[in-house]
């Protein structure tokens, strides 16, 4: 049973068509890596899954709930889908602990003590329990991104979306974030990752997709994708990036 179904999703920004009919299905527990040149619509697509952008045509069904203008559906889906951004987007006026417990307390209406317990557990999982009382501004980029992952996990999501989680990081910090993501993938989380980290794709992904000009040009297993691509566009892309 697929947890995300997208059928012919289209999206325009004014005159510019960002998505030109994307269809795909993702099974529960699957790790999907999407790559592609900038402006290819890959970020737009995963933002549509979370309703940060509104698709204008086609349909997206997440865990049996269709994404429409219905308030209840949007709330349901957002509670089930966690998201990690390229620029972390931590709340600078709150401590790490407050960042993580904010949503459980205010959205899930959980008790503060339970949420804090859970948050410590998550911080342990991403490997920075000692930073709980610091402000985001006092952390390094890699640490911030790991806090962002913990923040998304605090809502107990079924699906995690990663929007280029490592592109804003210095090279030496990329590894610590990728490690946290690998650990997450192994635990059986459904993940959609937009990234240029091909090593990560090879090692963890169940499937790899290439987006170009708002269309999905190739969908393949990682081994096939890297060693034996079907499409010329993929070959060109791989030659540029590797």
């Amino acid at each position, binding site marked *: 049973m697929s947890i995300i179904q997208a059928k012919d999703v289209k999206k*325009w920004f004014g*005159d*510019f068509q960002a998505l030109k009919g994307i269809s795909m299905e993702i099974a529960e527990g699957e790790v999907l890596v999407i790559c592609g040149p900038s402006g290819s619509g890959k970020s737009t697509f995963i933002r549509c899954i979370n309703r940060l952008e509104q698709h*204008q045509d086609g349909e997206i069904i997440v865990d049996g709930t269709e994404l429409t203008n*219905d*308030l209840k559906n949007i709330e349901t889906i957002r509670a089930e889908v966690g998201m990690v951004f390229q620029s972390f987007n931590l709340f600078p006026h709150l401590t790490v602990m407050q960042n993580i417990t904010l949503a459980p307390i205010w959205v899930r209406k959980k008790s503060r003590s339970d949420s804090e317990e859970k948050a410590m557990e998550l911080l342990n999982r991403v490997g920075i329990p000692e930073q709980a009382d610091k402000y985001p501004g006092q952390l390094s980029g890699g640490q911030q991104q790991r806090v962002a992952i913990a923040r998304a996990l605090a809502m107990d999501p079924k699906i995690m979306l990663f929007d280029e989680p490592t592109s804003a990081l210095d090279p030496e910090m990329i590894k610590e974030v990728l490690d946290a993501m690998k650990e997450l993938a192994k635990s059986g989380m459904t993940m959609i990752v937009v990234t240029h980290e091909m090593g990560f794709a090879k090692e963890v992904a169940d499937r790899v997709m290439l987006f170009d000009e708002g269309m999905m040009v190739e969908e393949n297993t990682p081994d096939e994708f890297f060693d034996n691509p079907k499409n010329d566009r993929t070959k060109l892309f791989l030659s540029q990036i590797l």
Partner: protein
Amino acid sequence: MKNAIKYFLFFRNVVFLKWAFQVIFLFGILSIIWNYIQNAIVNLADTNIAFSWGWLGETPGVSVAEGMYTLPNSGLQMIQTGMVNMFRITVTGIFAATVLGTFLGIARLSSNYIVEKSSTGLLEVVRNVPLLVQIYFFQAFVLSFPRLEVFDTGEYFFHASAKGIAFPWFNRGPNSYLLMVYALLVLYIANKIYKWRVEILEREGRDTKPFLWSVGTLITLLVIGWYGGFRAAGVVGFLAGYISMGLEAVPAIVYQMLISGTAIYIGFKATKKFIDSKKSEEAQGIYSDDDYFKIILNVVVVLLVVLIMFSSIGAGFAGFLVGDEITFKADWGLPQLFHGIENKLHWYPSIDVEVVAEIEGMKKAEIINWEIKPGDKIIQGDVIATAYATGTKIDKQEVELIALETGTVESLLVEEKGIAIKLGTPYYELEVTDGDPFIFSKPKIEQVGTTKFQRYAKGHGKSLSVGYFAIWLGVVLYTAIFISEVVRAGIMAVSKGQSEAGMSLGLRRGALLRLVVLPQAIRVMLPPMGNQYLNLAKNTSLGIAVAYPEIVAVGQTLYNQEGQTLPVFLIWMMFYSSVSLTISSIINYYNRKMKIVER
């Protein structure tokens, strides 16, 4: 089925909720406003002071202390006096505050310890004391001077007393408008010549000396102008006369239709352009909520304009332009406006000569015999008429009314004899043929008739009243301090690398500031500078505290007289809103221009 559920659940639909909230919000606001208007209608009915604009056309029973019309013939003219008084301060104030503020701003960046500290000290003092306190202090300062009566009458070069401050000045004569328009025309021509010569230079590649040419033309034409050539500007008045005649034939309904038509045209154009932009192949005519809203808003605004133009408000506005009984009296209708320009800028400008006091205590003049008739040429000092002066100690004392300007009599405004004419009322029309455009004179103290009071004589030098001095100095100093902060921040915003680059090219400090730093700093400074100009314009309203008759003070006098507080408040609002809009659009214009130059 699925769709049916979708529609049934409309109350959970985000788009529906969004618009429902907005509509409720709009109706909430409208109902609050409606509620207050209802209250106002009920309350006004109770107090027997119905809301009306009629008082604008009636002669107010009060005078204005200084300005264009000290004895206004209508409420509108009185308000005009207030507006002009406000602009007198705003325009000169903006100029002075900018100059002073720039100096202070540069001084605050000076490496000289004493210069830097003393300008900072001035800043801290002026910035941290309320403007009103400062204005009161300046007023009290001038009021503490000796009374004018302790000085001898006669001419002075510079004079200060509790009545104000006086200094020598070039006073305008009736011909001055001609000369000013002539100067503007000459500047325009010189500019055109400069461009023409530059064009030849660029085309043919030889030195055409554009600067020399334009300055030469400028000086030649100005010299010709000064010795009488300025009358050439009369062509403007000549044209204005025809425009005035043409406009007189236009009925009010034409204006109503014209404005509605323009609104429909602009609205239609804008909407069409917007829809076209969405129709492109890729956009496929897909609209967001905002797009629909924009289209609906366009339609609503156009409909509103048309509706208003054909309601009583629109009719009133059109009447205003045509020159109905209210605006006619104050020369505010379009035809009268152009007629006024014709009078001021004709080959020989025409003026309405007012009755002035020939002897002390004279209040009115009752003409016995006219010594002139239309078409007569008179020179300064001629006798215009003999009249009985009323209001003096001896009843009906016989006096001679004397001509103050040289020219040709156009018409007599008081044909019947035996009618008492108040001082300040025009009684004949004169075409001025002679006299300098500007007359240099020194201040003079004169006695007010035979009383023990004295005053600065009108038309001799320039005297600033206490109120004018206090409010002017107050707003200029206060604004200059804030402008100095803007200038300082602007200069500091230019990176140090720019100065270093300039210095490495061998520029000196002055040239560096003028050529490299200031042009860049001005771009940063413009928007906050515009804010300061706006503040200055608004702060002139404190003139009311020192009895300077600007628009707020004049408005207050008027509503104390007529009881019409609401219309006066609306006038204030319209006036200040349009001043704010004007200043901010000028600043925006330059801002945009600067930005284009940059790229």
